[in-house]
């Protein structure tokens, strides 16, 4: 009964969003009242979605197994936290969450935007159309309320144990918030294109919304990377998996967008670019949703894919993307600014980086699509792996760091003289060449990407450090937010390079009582312990580890193998010893016939700093929202 109420609320909400969209199309002809109506009806629609979702959470906590989705993805023995997170552990529920965030976020925008704003009614209308379209998708092709009545099962299925993890439980919500966050920029700019009134300053409106969306997306991606690192047992932080790539593409486009917004809010020059980017970010989010949910990439997936889902998503995203781009093409001649960008001005460097980012996005997109195209033409399955992405992304990252550093000391709207002997730019280039070479000699690694990565990372760090020192000593204003965020980027580049350059692993065979020594540590495998938990049996190895150097540091590590009862799944729980600059990462493999165990020992350098730098970038962006209001 309660499930039906929740279902009914969702159906009502879709009706209200349709109504709000229809009203918004009438605003051209009639008076102001209709505009207020659009906003009101929209509010009610999102409240209905929200209440419906709250009831669904309650149903999930109550373990209402008359609902097929809950029966299939949750069970009675789960902790309440995982009962709730089981909602977004599969397609229907995660789509539901996506829509909830979409409508709440849009409602927040609706609430914040003054009624007098010229683009309010049309942009709310576009948002209504988007939410309506997704609600129809949810209700007709992936209904989370599908019933198992008349007779409900006594208990549900377990959720996949590797998904029973706090980082995984919270990372999809952040990702979805990031994805849907860019809908505001999309809707507002499409409204701007439809209206075609060039005097409207949309930059100021969408900048904070895009920054918040960028932060949330960054947090979501970082949490996902952290989870994959400690849970999957492979010891990496990024796998260039298609699902990761479809999150990376909107992130890169979003990064380009927030920079481009910054330029176009100061000078008119990049306006057309900024609009195109704001359309692209959300389009790439839609593309990602399509790729992941239509099942065309992950064809070994165990569930039967419903081809209708893919078709609906394709048609709906197609309508949104192509129509907004058609408006863009229509207004394009008016948008292109007449004043040319001066070479060696700040805008010029930012534009070059815009182009580099778009190139990177196309490269990643090609990597995702290439297996599909290949399969379509040659009926053969291939996969595109890390070597492709690394060889393309690394040079682009290198080049864009250089142009970033050029942009630091340059001025708006005029050419700047950058290279004189004592300029901060020359100084930072010299210093970072020195540091990069020093590291290369010290660590005896002369790979081009290793030196290049360290060079570009230190170049950014040093250049911003010089800026900060200079401006603080002269008591001049400088953009603190930008300095912090870009310092984060510098640390990220250095950490990635050092991680790739130094990390290594070894696979050993060892039995209880034996020890293994390498040049840093001695590993003693003391014994094994069998543990019986509520929902799994576990075998836990006890390692005593001594460092070989003078410090004679001693610690224990407990890698573990678990067998879960309900699904019979076997998982490996790696043991991780965290030190400031490296992680020791032990994974228990299989037992051999002679009683020895296969054990994988990895040293992962600077891996923590990759995530820390993401947090620093987020902090910088958070400050950018507060940064002094943009003048025009």
């Amino acid at each position, binding site marked *: 009964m309660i499930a039906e109420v929740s279902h009914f609320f969702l159906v009502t909400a879709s009706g209200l969003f349709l109504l709000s969209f229809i009203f918004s199309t009438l605003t051209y002809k009639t008076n102001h009242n209709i505009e207020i109506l659009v906003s009101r009806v929209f509010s009610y629609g999102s409240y209905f979605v929200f209440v419906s979702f709250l009831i669904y959470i309650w149903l999930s906590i109550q373990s209402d197994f008359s609902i097929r989705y809950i029966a299939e993805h949750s069970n009675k023995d789960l902790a309440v936290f995982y009962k709730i997170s089981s909602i977004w552990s599969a397609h229907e529920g995660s789509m539901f969450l996506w829509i909830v965030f979409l409508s709440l976020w849009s409602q927040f925008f609706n609430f914040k935007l003054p009624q007098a704003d010229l683009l309010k009614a049309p942009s709310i209308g576009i948002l209504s159309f988007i939410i309506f379209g997704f609600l129809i998708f949810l209700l007709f092709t992936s209904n989370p309320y599908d019933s198992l009545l008349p007779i409900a099962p006594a208990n549900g299925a377990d959720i996949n144990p590797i998904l029973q993890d706090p980082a995984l439980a919270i990372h999809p919500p952040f990702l979805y918030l990031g994805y849907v966050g860019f809908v505001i920029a999309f809707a507002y700019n499409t409204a701007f294109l439809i209206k075609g009134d060039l005097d409207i300053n949309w930059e100021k409106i969408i900048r904070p919304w895009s920054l918040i969306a960028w932060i949330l997306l960054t947090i979501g991606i970082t949490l996902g990377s952290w989870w994959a690192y400690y849970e999957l047992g492979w010891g990496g932080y990024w796998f260039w998996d298609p699902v990761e790539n479809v999150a990376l593409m909107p992130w890169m486009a979003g990064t380009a967008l927030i920079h481009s917004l910054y330029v176009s809010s100061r000078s008119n020059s990049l306006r057309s670019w900024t609009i195109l980017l704001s359309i692209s970010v959300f389009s790439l989010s839609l593309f990602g949703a399509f790729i992941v949910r239509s099942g065309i990439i992950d064809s070994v997936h165990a*569930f039967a894919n419903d081809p209708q889902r893919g*078709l609906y998503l394709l048609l709906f995203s197609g309508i949104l993307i192509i129509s907004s781009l058609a408006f863009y093409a229509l207004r394009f001649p008016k948008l292109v600014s007449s004043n040319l960008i001066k070479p060696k001005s700040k805008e010029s460097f930012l534009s070059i980086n815009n182009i580099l980012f778009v190139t990177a996005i196309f490269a990643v997109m090609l990597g995702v699509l290439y297996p599909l195209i290949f399969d379509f033409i040659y009926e053969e399955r291939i996969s595109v792996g890390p070597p492709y992405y690394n060889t393309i992304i690394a040079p682009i990252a290198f080049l864009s760091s250089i142009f970033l550093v050029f942009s630091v000391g340059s001025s708006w709207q005029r050419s700047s003289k950058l290279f004189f002997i004592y300029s901060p730019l020359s100084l930072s280039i010299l210093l970072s060449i020195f540091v990069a070479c020093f590291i290369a000699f010290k660590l005896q690694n002369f790979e081009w990407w290793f030196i290049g990565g360290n060079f570009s990372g230190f170049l950014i760090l040093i250049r911003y450090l010089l800026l900060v020192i200079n401006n603080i000593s002269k008591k001049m204003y400088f953009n603190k937010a930008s300095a912090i965020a870009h310092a984060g980027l510098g640390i990220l580049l250095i950490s990635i390079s050092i991680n790739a350059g130094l990390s290594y692993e070894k696979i050993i065979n060892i039995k209880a009582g034996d020890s293994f020594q390498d040049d840093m540590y001695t590993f003693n495998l003391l014994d094994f312990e069998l543990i019986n938990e509520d929902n799994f049996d576990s075998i836990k190895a006890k390692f005593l580890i001594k460092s070989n150097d003078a410090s004679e540091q001693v610690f224990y590590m407990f890698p573990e193998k678990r067998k879960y009862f309900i699904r019979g799944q076997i998982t490996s729980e790696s043991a991780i010893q965290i030190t400031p600059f490296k992680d020791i990462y032990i994974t228990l493999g299989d037992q051999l016939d002679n009683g020895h165990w296969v054990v994988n020992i990895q040293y992962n350098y600077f891996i923590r700093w990759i995530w820390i730098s993401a947090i620093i970038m987020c902090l910088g962006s958070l400050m950018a929202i507060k940064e002094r209001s943009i003048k025009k």
Partner: protein
Amino acid sequence: MKIFIRLVILIIPIVGFVFFYNLLTEDKFYPGANFDRFNVPVFALDDITSQKIYTKDDLNDELLLNVWASWCITCRVEHGFLMELKQEGFLITGLNYKDESTDANNWLNLYGNPYSFSLHDIKGSLALDMGVTGAPETFLIKNGEVLVHYSGEVNLAVWDNVFYPVIKENKMFR
């Protein structure tokens, strides 16, 4: 130049759209479907009511063999569709997989029995011989030969795309 940029901006997504449309509507490989033919191995198993021992010869000429268990949630999900198939006159024999016979019988009494009879494979030996990896799985069998092996839930989409074309081609269930 401007015309060119405008065209490119529109053509890229349209090409993408057409490509994906073709990809999605193309007759595609169904994950879980296996069309390697093989003969049903020889077996002798109780049925779940322990009334009779069945062998390979007791199987009908044309049947669907459905691997199920009372502990299997997806089997519960699939159950409604199997009942519909039974009503349309398809003969379905059950292969009760690694399950207690009391649980299995209770399950059938509670939800309804779509099966002509259910073999009781508590050790999973016949299932192993037939390449079963879990429940539910469904086999289409004609004269002792397996024509289709599908792992996962059978629903209308799977039926229409995986089973029905083979049934039609082999002129079965007439």
